[in-house]
């Protein structure tokens, strides 16, 4: 029988199945960060258990770490304690690799896994972070998990999981100039909604996905969770294999040959059955900007802020009214007339080298508008930062009036000092525009790195295609 990629990945990891179909899945890679792991390590210790296989662990500190004045260390004592707790836990139990605060390879856990070749096709990857779906770009079954599950994986090397339904999202055609992976995934979420993928494992396919770089595929898979799907993935092709070649933890020599032969089988069979298929035409996607407090509240840069009356469902209408009030927006306002206060380029969605190159290409020779109080560029990892500096991108950003920071999660979720003040409006390349996400009372608009720079330069949302054409 023909199989989906999901079937293949699933079957390759099933250790045991309960009568109701609940399975024990073997976990190949366990990514660990400071926020969701302390209680798990403590639980393990209290129960007198040892980690099952520490060589599956790759750990880093990312959520709490500051992005400037590293010489001062972590000023917030509560944040510092959490990072030091991770240091102590990893020191005690061990790991395949640990990139602590200030290490030159430290960074956002979902950036460094692939960058190190610690994320490989066919793996099950887990992390106590919902954006673990990012690793699906490598044809991994990558689940975001809670802290109890972090402890469960530490203790047993397995995850209890029921098989989801399979959804194929086919992005047909070709994106136009200035339209990126971020625009594809935002347009998709706008179409299927933030619960559209709930209960499904999503395979992203079609020519527009195949045409994306690994960075672009990571951006798309990263936001699978924003469409409600715990896992999202892309089949292996030459782009996947090319990216992995020579990376630190990627297989070498004879293993490389054997591995790549296996990886090439990680595609859905031609006539594999899906429970749902969604198609989108890439050529119809314009640059996207969210206007509300949920990623599904999104419009094209050519569009307008909607009115609550546009929605027939009363719960939805009420939700839109509340979102507009929170966002301080008037119905029917053209998106490109909304003024901004801050700009954030970074996060596990859009902080990789390709994102920074795209942003720098727009920033080059231009300057941030006077009304923009702060424009931050936060690379995803120390290695991304180093690469960007080698290419001179830091100088372009600095000359354009952006700040060039140290790596970390930063203003995506504002656990460190990078945050919005109440009422401030931000053009952000991150993944969530929830109320208070980037700081209490802050107003977040999600968009691509190139669009974030276009907004920084104009002082309001602006169509990057008019700057670059």
């Amino acid at each position: 029988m023909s199989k989906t990629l999901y079937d293949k990945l699933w079957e390759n990891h099933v250790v045991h199945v309960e009568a109701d179909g609940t399975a024990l899945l073997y976990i190949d890679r366990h990514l660990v960060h400071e926020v969701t792991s302390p209680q798990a390590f403590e639980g393990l210790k209290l129960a007198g258990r040892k980690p099952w296989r520490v060589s599956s662990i790759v750990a880093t500190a990312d959520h709490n770490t500051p992005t400037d004045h590293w010489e001062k260390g972590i000023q917030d004592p509560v944040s510092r304690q959490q990072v030091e707790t991770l240091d102590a836990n990893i020191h005690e139990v061990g790991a395949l690799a640990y990139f602590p605060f200030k290490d030159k390879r430290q960074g956002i856990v979902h950036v460094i896994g692939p960058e190190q070749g610690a994320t490989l096709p066919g793996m099950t990857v887990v992390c106590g972070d919902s954006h673990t779906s990012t690793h699906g770009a490598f044809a991994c079954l990558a689940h975001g998990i809670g802290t109890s599950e972090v402890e469960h994986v530490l203790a047993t090397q397995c995850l209890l999981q029921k098989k989801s339904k399979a959804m194929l999202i086919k992005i047909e055609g070709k994106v136009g100039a200035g339209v990126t992976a971020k625009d594809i995934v935002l347009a998709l979420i706008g179409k299927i909604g933030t619960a559209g993928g709930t209960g499904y494992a999503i395979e992203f396919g079609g020519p527009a996905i195949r045409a994306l770089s690994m960075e672009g595929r990571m951006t798309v898979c990263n936001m699978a969770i924003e469409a409600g799907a715990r896992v999202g993935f892309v089949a292996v092709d030459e782009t996947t294999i090319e990216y992995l070649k020579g990376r630190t933890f990627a297989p070498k020599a004879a293993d490389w040959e054997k591995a790549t032969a296996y990886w090439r089988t990680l595609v859905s069979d031609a006539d594999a059955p899906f429970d749902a298929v969604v198609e989108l035409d890439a050529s119809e996607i314009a640059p996207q900007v969210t206007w509300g407090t949920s990623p599904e509240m999104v419009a094209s840069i050519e569009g307008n802020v909607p009115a609550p009356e546009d929605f027939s469902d009363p719960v939805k209408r009420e939700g839109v009214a509340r979102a507009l009030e929170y966002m301080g927006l008037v119905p029917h306002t053209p998106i490109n007339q909304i003024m901004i206060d801050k700009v954030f380029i970074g996060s596990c969605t859009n902080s990789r080298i390709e994102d920074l190159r795209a942003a720098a290409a727009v920033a080059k020779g231009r300057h941030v508008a006077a009304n923009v109080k702060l424009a931050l560029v936060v690379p995803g990892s120390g290695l991304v930062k180093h690469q960007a500096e080698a290419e001179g991108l830091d100088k372009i950003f600095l000359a354009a009036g952006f700040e060039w920071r140290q790596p970390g999660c930063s203003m995506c979720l504002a656990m460190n000092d990078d945050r919005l003040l109440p009422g401030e409006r931000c053009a952000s390349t991150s993944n969530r525009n929830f109320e208070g996400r980037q700081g209490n009372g802050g107003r977040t608009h999600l968009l691509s790195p190139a669009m974030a720079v276009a907004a920084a330069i104009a002082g309001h949302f602006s169509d990057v295609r008019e700057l670059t054409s």
Partner: protein
Amino acid sequence: MEKFTTYEGLVVPLDRANVDTDAIIPKQFLKSIKRSGFGPNAFDEWRYLDHGEPGMDNANRIKNPDFILNQQRYQGASILLVRSNFGCGSSREHAPWALQDFGFRAILGESFADIFFNNCFKNGLLPIVLPKAEIDALFLLTKSTPGFRITVDLAAQVVSRPDGHKIPFVVDAFRKECLLNGWDDIDLTLRQAEKIRAFEAQRRIEQPWLFA
């Protein structure tokens, strides 16, 4: 884990869709390295008029009188009634920890986000999916009937309203057993330790690069 068998409690209606885990427990409280004490900060940004930070004396903060959980008639509520896609967003287990620490034992809604749904079961907090029509009716009843209480019977998989109306619900057999017995997942899984070891040994042979 705390057992869940039959539970009767006061219902509070949180009438909005897509309630995300950032709203349930804002990020600044995630800096704690403990598993308990999140209740006073559940829904912090909606519940209080000032900005909350870890270490504040929550008893002396000014509450938002318009927020449903602050209304007198819902004090002591332990069953949360919600709309669709409740718990979307981050995987933070601090969200169910906060709800449970607040005093909730069950959540009734049209739908839940996957990770949140899963996290609830690990903490003896029962999320129940009911048809939209039943949820709509429960919202009407809860709002119109002060002191509206319901009973959740996990063994029978039934929610009972005071008027005798019974609403059946679906729950995975494995999860149900775990909750009814208060079983620890890790203990259960470790009963399969031999199988895990055998699987791992085979994998080491077939894909040695995964064990570098």
